[in-house]
């Protein structure tokens, strides 16, 4: 039994949440049971992802290749648990579990009736499974299917909030995402037409042989894929849907959307660009430069827009646009340290932003105030919530000993390796701007007179959820060793394919 589980771990992390997600609606009247079940599953998922990561990590750069149904590639579908995959799986598991804990007994006021809570959990698990699938899959068509599953679950989660603007935000999201999906499918189709393969490894081999014969097709495929996945992962200026969707969604959904969902698409883009096209081909197509420049623009413009927002969740949503800019920038610099930084930054941002959105949700639930200017004195009334908010803010600003700093440090080294001084300057400018839009929240919360109304921290599961994520922010900053090593190996793997 144990060996069976161990041998099938790469597929179980994908299939288990998907299957259980579909079973949940049968328990629609047993909300508490569903909540417990979801927490239990996410804890098991964390153990599974941790075990898989330890297998890959201790193997010293080995990748676990799993053939679905025993059919070897190129006939069957291949799942690959390499360094990048397990890093992202770990990230998903680390973030998903505390959010599930936070949601326990805390959703119904945001999504309306309690039976809708169960449907929300279904979508939550579907999204988790789809994201895990994106991490491990090595098949282009699989990527498309999983992206669709994730997109539709995200859309449902945005629409779940009983807020007048939520439906509108979800519709915008759906329309733009359909456009993205269509382009993604077109891009995958073009790659399939010229290479005859859907397996990334085989497609890459074929592509490196024939790319000179089809320069226009390859250019078209690359631009389709870049725009398609760019819309989904909020690559500036294709981010327009994100602020609405992420700020009007229920808070746990905002946390998972901002923390994880966009990262899944980002990873897909990274995998397709590096594992299918290969580093040298994307440099020839100048895709790397486009991504770097758009990433830098995203950092600056996203931050400036975040500064202008007075609504707490909207400011955090624009901050996500800016922070994703760092990941894109590192992805476009095409060297080991920049890619390491990019991957680690994705991880650091996932935990930090999840904390921020959960804390924002707790504040809005308790006080009913959505504007930053109305948060005076919250820090004294809700000490735990504001403490974790502060920790996550320090991480995003890039203070040493917090997760964000480690990523920024490697991004800076990578920028210098690439000889790109502008990128280094933008990393720093982004940090200063990040301080400019996050610190005032902390100042208002702690240093302005408290309201007379009685507010308090949310319940125990919510507090534990937030504290777990905050602990992750600090652990990633103080002992990043193994995670950084995984990210470095992943970067080396990505760059190994020419």
């Amino acid at each position, binding site marked *: 039994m144990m060996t069976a589980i161990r041998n099938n771990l790469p597929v179980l992390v994908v299939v288990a949440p998907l299957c259980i997600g579909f079973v949940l609606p049968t328990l629609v009247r047993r909300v508490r049971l569903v909540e417990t079940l979801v927490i239990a599953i996410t804890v098991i998922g964390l153990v599974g992802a941790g075990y898989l990561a330890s297998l890959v990590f201790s193997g010293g750069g080995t990748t676990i290749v799993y053939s679905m149904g025993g059919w070897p590639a190129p006939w069957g579908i291949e799942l690959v648990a390499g360094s990048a995959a397990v890093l992202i799986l770990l990230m998903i598991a680390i973030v998903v579990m505390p959010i599930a804990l936070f949601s326990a007994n805390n959703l119904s006021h945001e999504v309306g009736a309690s039976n809708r809570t169960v449907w929300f959990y279904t979508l939550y698990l579907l999204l988790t499974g789809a994201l895990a699938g994106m991490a491990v899959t090595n098949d282009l068509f699989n990527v498309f299917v999983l992206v669709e599953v994730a997109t539709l679950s995200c859309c449902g989660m945005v629409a779940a909030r009983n807020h007048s603007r939520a439906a509108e935000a979800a519709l915008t999201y759906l329309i733009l995402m359909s456009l993205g999906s269509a382009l993604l499918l077109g891009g995958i189709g073009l790659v399939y037409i010229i290479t005859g393969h859907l397996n990334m490894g085989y497609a890459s081999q074929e592509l490196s042989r024939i790319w000179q014969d089809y320069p226009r097709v390859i250019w078209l495929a690359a631009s389709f894929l870049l725009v398609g996945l760019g819309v989904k992962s909020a690559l500036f200026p294709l981010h327009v849907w994100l602020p609405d969707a992420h700020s009007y969604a229920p808070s746990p959904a905002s946390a998972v959307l901002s923390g994880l969902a966009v990262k899944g698409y980002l990873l897909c883009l990274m995998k397709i660009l590096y594992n299918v096209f290969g580093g040298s081909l994307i440099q020839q197509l100048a895709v790397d430069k486009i991504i770097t420049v758009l990433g830098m623009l995203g950092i600056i413009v996203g931050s400036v827009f975040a500064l202008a927002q007075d609504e707490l969740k909207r400011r955090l949503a624009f901050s996500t646009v800016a922070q994703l800019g760092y990941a894109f920038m590192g992805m476009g610099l095409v060297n080991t340290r920049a890619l390491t930084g990019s991957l680690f930054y994705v991880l650091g941002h996932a935990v930090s932003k999840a904390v921020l959105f959960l804390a924002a949700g707790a504040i809005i639930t308790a006080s009913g105030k959505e504007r930053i200017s109305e948060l005076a004195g919250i820090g004294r009334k809700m000490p735990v919530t504001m403490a974790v908010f502060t920790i996550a803010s*320090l991480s995003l*600003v*890039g*203070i*040493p*000993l917090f997760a964000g700093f*480690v990523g*920024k*440090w490697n991004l*800076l*080294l990578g920028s*210098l*390796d690439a000889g790109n001084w502008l990128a*280094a*300057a933008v990393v*720093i*400018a982004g*940090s*200063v701007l990040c*301080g*400019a839009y996050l*610190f*005032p929240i902390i*100042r208002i919360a*702690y*240093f*302005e007179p408290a309201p007379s109304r009685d507010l308090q921290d949310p319940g125990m599961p919510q507090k534990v959820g937030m504290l777990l994520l905050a602990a992750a922010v600090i652990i990633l*900053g*103080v*002992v*990043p*060793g193994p995670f*950084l090593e995984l990210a470095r190996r992943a970067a080396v793997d990505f760059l190994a394919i020419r």
Partner: protein
Amino acid sequence: MIELVLALLSGAAGGIIIALMPRASRRLRNIIALTFVVLGAVFTWRVAGMVLHGQIVGISWEIGGLPWSLQPDPLGAVFGLIASTLWLFATVYSFGYMAKEHKQGTYYTFLLLAFSVTLGVAFSGNLAALYLFYELLTLATYPLVIHRRDEEAVKAGRKYILYSLSGAGAILIATVVTYAWAGRLDFAGGPLLASVGLRRGAGWLLALFIAGFGVKAAIMPLHRWLPAAMVAPTPVSALLHAVAVVYSGVFGILRVVYSVFGHELVRQLSLGRFLPWVAAFTILVGVIVATRQDVLKRRLAYHTISQLSYILLGAFTLHPLGLAGAVLHMFSYSILKVSLFFAAGIIARQTGKLKVSEMGGVGWKLPLTMAAFGAASLGMIGMLPLSTFWSKYHLMRGSAAGGIWPFALVLIVSGLINAFCFLPTVIAAFTGERGQQVLEKGGGVGLMLAPTALLAALSVLIGLWPGMLWPSVESVVRSFF
């Protein structure tokens, strides 16, 4: 080793304890604050003594491939010595000055946290640790700047944060470049970039470092946050914005010149020849602007800007005598400036007068305060028996010996303008009719007056017996030359 950790953690521990006791009485809070500051100071003196006697005290660890270390060298020991001693005085002064203020819990929490962080800057053994504490210092002192919580304070706080974060950003880039070039970050094994030598972009790297640390060292034109930060309570202005925070910038520049580049490499850079001019410009313009300020604290702030560049000028001479003058000035200037600020605080508290033009006759009401103020003013001109005479003397000798004698003239001119800056105030304070009511009795004035007078006396003592500082100055100079 254990002394180092205890010295570093005392302030933070005290700050956290005070934060956890929001309902503690004022008396209890003061006792806790004083206890932990004394503890921190005693351990710091112990560490400084060990370091200055040539022992190696340090700890280091590694995070994700990036080394961090705390290992003070003589320069760090000197900074720690100055900071911890003055922190004691400022804490006692605060008991008197802050007695009727609001939010004292927050005030003491962050005063003590800033103590720890400043010692962290002093003790940092590599660039990564220096950057960390330099950044943290901004965050720890921000609540003190906005203590009044009104619009002006919040605006000043915003300015302070933005200037400081930008400076820290420049330092971070520069640190990354240094790491990429030299492959190490520790200060212990000689100048970091000595092995790299003169390579393209070295001048830019130096400029980036100086700009980054220059924000807190208030080099013109990066000084704008400092006059604004004067909205903070006077003990904060005295301790942080005349000494601890601004010294962390000066300290950073000394580090960059002597530990990152090394004086030989800086001498080869064309920027190295330009730097004394930047310092001289700030010295003169700072003090001239100071004479034109009517609000006493603003005048003192611009005067700080000018005086900090004395230290930088000494460092930029790249000559042992100049560096000796710089280190002596770190001691002597800080003692007198804190005394000046303390006196200004007493004047404001007891008479409500903030402007120089209103201070006629104040001396008869506050004779001891104004006596200390007058002594400190003489010190700023550089007169004997005050300790600043000796530092200026060495700065001038260093300029001459370093082959840049015009800067000795700058110092003389600056001394003259200093006379115009403070002496008229002192003279005016003792005009008018005598026999007014003396306001120096009761109500915690003693707690403010004692530190003020003691510091002025300390300066005279050092001025009469400068040899007491010489061993530490000598070991700093020896460690770099």
